[in-house]
């Protein structure tokens, strides 16, 4: 059962060839058997999942089912889930049971999707390797000595190892696409505002975007169809209507122009990775696409701009974790200053503290103009570069990451090396553009990701291009060794 995609299982459920209970039990048993070595889950909600599955089976017998009714999925532990621990990978929220569902969670629940649990992640989504989690690192199913990427590393590993059909993730600087690339799955970060941020624990509000990790673009379309749309609880959610993604996927191929930025093929890119991506581009050429070299003037500034804007917002967003109303609270406190210092000192891990310090610094009087304002100007320039590029190309294509998955502990001592992992993905966040990563080959038996970036609200175009690529290739069907059965 676990070898099938969401689209296939959805058909099987509707044809009553399999029940949601059978599916749910099957995936729960895989989690029980295989997750000890992966650490992809922080919480498994077995009892709730089984009762949801029974409800889904009842619903499947009526005409009120959706394509996701009865499909087992998992949520990144950054999404608030009513009555279920929502830790955000942090000791700070280890005791936090959310009293409400995030909008994306509620929509998937209403559609009848079954939540099997909450997936591991870098603490507060700050990391590119899933090593900053309070709950320990996630292991890459392709090589358990390697990282799965981050911050949505638990979701990526769970989908890659077939512990679940699909999972939610969030992407602030590449946190869906980078782990998708490193684990050989399809990760979609929609346009900023396409999916409501309500109920997603905020990291960097102007960059955070929820999306999906699935095996195929077709499956991503099914999940995003449910998750997307306006939300009166999120002022930054986009009011534009959501097109029918699956219908877009099924529409006939039109010749498109793919822009390939020369600056994405720089010295930092592993040469084997580069070749794999170029081979993938020729698949598109075979479909009739035109490949055009482009140059993004300011994209090399995206990492420094990001590491000003994101920590600045994070330093403020994380101020609410003060031990007063919820979450971790240090014991034996004498006064207010000590209360804050010890609660936050003990509740947050090292990477989170590093970013809070950086963010506080760049917003401080005397530094604001030189750092925060300057970074916002750079952000504008990067957005303009993309806008100009999209005047002559339909999508931009390139690598998702500089290298395949690296070793656990390999980069933890060097934050700059770690941050450079997101060099190709951050631009889309700064410009608010939709982007995805899909598997396009193997290097040293490790998956490599191809990234596609589209103009605002072009999810349908992106998904369609990915779908046609996946019809021509079988990289997305490869199962990590040892997880086929």
């Amino acid at each position: 059962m676990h070898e099938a995609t969401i689209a296939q299982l959805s058909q099987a459920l509707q044809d009553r060839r399999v029940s949601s209970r059978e599916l749910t039990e099957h995936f729960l048993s895989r989690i029980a058997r295989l997750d000890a070595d992966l650490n992809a889950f922080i919480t498994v909600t077995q009892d709730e999942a089984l009762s949801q599955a029974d409800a889904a089976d009842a619903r499947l017998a009526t005409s009120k089912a959706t394509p996701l009714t009865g499909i087992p999925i998992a949520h990144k532990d950054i999404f608030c889930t009513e009555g279920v621990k929502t830790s955000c990978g942090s000791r700070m929220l280890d005791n936090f049971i959310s009293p409400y569902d995030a909008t994306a969670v509620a929509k998937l629940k209403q559609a009848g999707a079954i939540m099997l649990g909450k997936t591991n992640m870098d603490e507060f989504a700050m990391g590119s390797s899933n090593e900053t989690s309070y709950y320990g690192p996630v292991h890459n199913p392709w090589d358990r000595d390697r990282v799965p990427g981050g911050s949505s590393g638990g979701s990526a590993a769970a989908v890659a190892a077939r512990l679940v059909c699909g999972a939610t993730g969030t992407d602030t600087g590449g946190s869906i696409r980078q782990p998708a690339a490193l684990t050989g799955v399809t990760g979609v970060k929609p346009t900023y505002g396409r999916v409501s941020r309500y109920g997603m624990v905020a990291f960097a509000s102007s960059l955070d975007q929820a999306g999906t990790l699935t095996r195929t673009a077709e499956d991503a379309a099914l999940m995003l169809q449910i998750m997307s749309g306006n939300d009166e609880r999120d002022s930054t959610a986009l009011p534009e209507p959501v097109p029918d993604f699956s219908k877009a996927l099924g529409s006939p191929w039109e010749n498109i122009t793919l822009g390939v930025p020369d600056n994405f093929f720089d010295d930092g890119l592993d040469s084997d990775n580069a070749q794999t991506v170029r081979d993938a581009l020729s698949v598109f050429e075979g479909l009739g696409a035109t490949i055009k070299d482009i140059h993004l003037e300011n994209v090399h500034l995206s990492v420094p701009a990001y590491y000003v804007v994101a920590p600045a917002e994070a330093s403020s967003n994380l101020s609410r974790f003060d031990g007063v109303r919820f979450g971790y609270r240090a014991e034996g406190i004498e006064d207010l200053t000590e209360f804050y210092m010890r609660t936050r000192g003990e509740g947050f891990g090292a990477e989170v503290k590093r970013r809070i310090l950086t963010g506080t610094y760049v917003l401080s009087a005397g530094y604001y103009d030189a750092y925060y304002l300057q970074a916002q100007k750079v952000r504008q320039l990067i957005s303009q570069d993309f806008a100009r590029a999209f005047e002559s190309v339909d999508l931009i294509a390139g690598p998702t990451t500089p290298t395949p998955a690296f070793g656990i502990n390999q980069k933890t001592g060097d934050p700059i090396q770690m941050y450079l992992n997101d060099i190709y993905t951050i631009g889309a966040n700064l410009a608010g553009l939709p982007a995805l990563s899909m598997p396009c080959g193997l290097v040293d038996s490790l998956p490599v990701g191809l990234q596609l970036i589209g103009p605002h609200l072009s999810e349908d175009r992106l998904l369609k291009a990915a779908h046609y690529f996946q019809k021509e290739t079988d990289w997305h069907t490869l199962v990590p060794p040892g997880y086929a059965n």
Partner: protein
Amino acid sequence: MDWETVIGLEIHAQLATASKIFSGSATRYGAEPNTQANLVDLGYPGVLPVLNRDAVCMAIKFGLATDCEISHRSVFARKNYFYPDLPKGYQISQYELPIVKGGHLDIVLEEGEVKRIGITRAHLEEDAGKSLHENFHGLSGIDLNRAGTPLLEIVSEPDLRSAEEAGTYMRTIHTLVRYLGISDGNMQEGSFRCDANVSIRIRGQTKLGTRTELKNLNSFRFVEKAIQVEIERQIEVLEDDGEVIQETRLYDADKNDTRAMRSKEEANDYRYFPDPDLLPVIIEEGLIERLRSELPELPEAKRKRFVNEYGLSEAVAAELTATRETGDYFEQAVSSQPNVSPKRIANLIQRELTAALNRDGLKIENSRVTPETIGELAAKIEDDTVSSSAANIVFDDLWHAGDSGNVDSVIEKRGLKQITDISAIETMVDEVIAGNPDQVEQFRRGKEKVIGFLVGQIMKTSQGKANPQQVNELLRKKLRD
């Protein structure tokens, strides 16, 4: 040394919206602690603010009423600091781009002189919660009912030159926001409070002196007293060759002095930056025009109209326009008695009615005597049916009778119909002359003032029924005889 005082006020007016500025919680005062705080107010993980449109409209109305420029684009910013009653660890406010700016307001000083006070800006922000330090046995309690309540912070130019001017300006703003219906202005409940920036300089200098900020002044009287005592303190410091330190000071009403709270050196760096959870507020011209058309007659216009239309003095007109309801009451009374002098009606409202309202702690809109009844009573004075002093008694009866009071029947029942029968008055005059030989002697020796005492005696014995003018004339005639 001739010192000049320079004062600027920052007034916080709580906006009279039904719900909070960024959440759907109610804003009612006095609810059980933490019963009006939802997940957004509590700053739970993942929640987001959504701007209350009514608060924006109210801020625009204030801007229009004070000739401010309405910003077509304004931005909410986060003011970051830690305090247990500030749930998110930041307050959502406006910093570089406030919703309205660059206006002014005219205030009327004691001598009737009109002074124009500049309004730098007014911006929207959310209130914090409340820390409770009593009854928690060494711990602190937090009540977040107030967290997220919409405030309009109104910042004046440093145009005020005395404690009295500051008090007058604050009263004028208070009147204005209540006219506009954008704040209930209730000071006991903290809906209207102010911070004062105070400095002094030698008269003639243009450079501002070092200022101190007086925090959280929540009554007109405290504003004036606090500023006055702070001015005196600064003068003393400077005349002793000392230096005024830029700092925040608290006014202690019991001791009537101010003391330092925190100095600039330890001041917070609030790390303001635009709030990425909220879009810039874009205000279309159409909305501004619609709100402009909805503005009521403003206090200043009404005051001027009362002077012109009803022949009232500036001072009386100012008093009768202090609230929209007082002006309405007056005009209802006047229109019910077109032939009675508006001044006489104004007089009754200012004296009898105001005294009774104050005594019973009522607002004029809850008055026990209707405007029509006041008009009728004024008419009875005007046509000499009752004297002014008898009218006091009639008013008191009407007040206590409430709705059931009828002017004619009270006059009848009390027998307060004015005595104009000359022979009856003559008898009373004769009695008074006979009973007060000392005063009569004094009058005859030229101490004319004594006549007032003698008239008073007659009014007393007649229970106010004698026509005082007739009494006066007859008394003088008889005393000269």
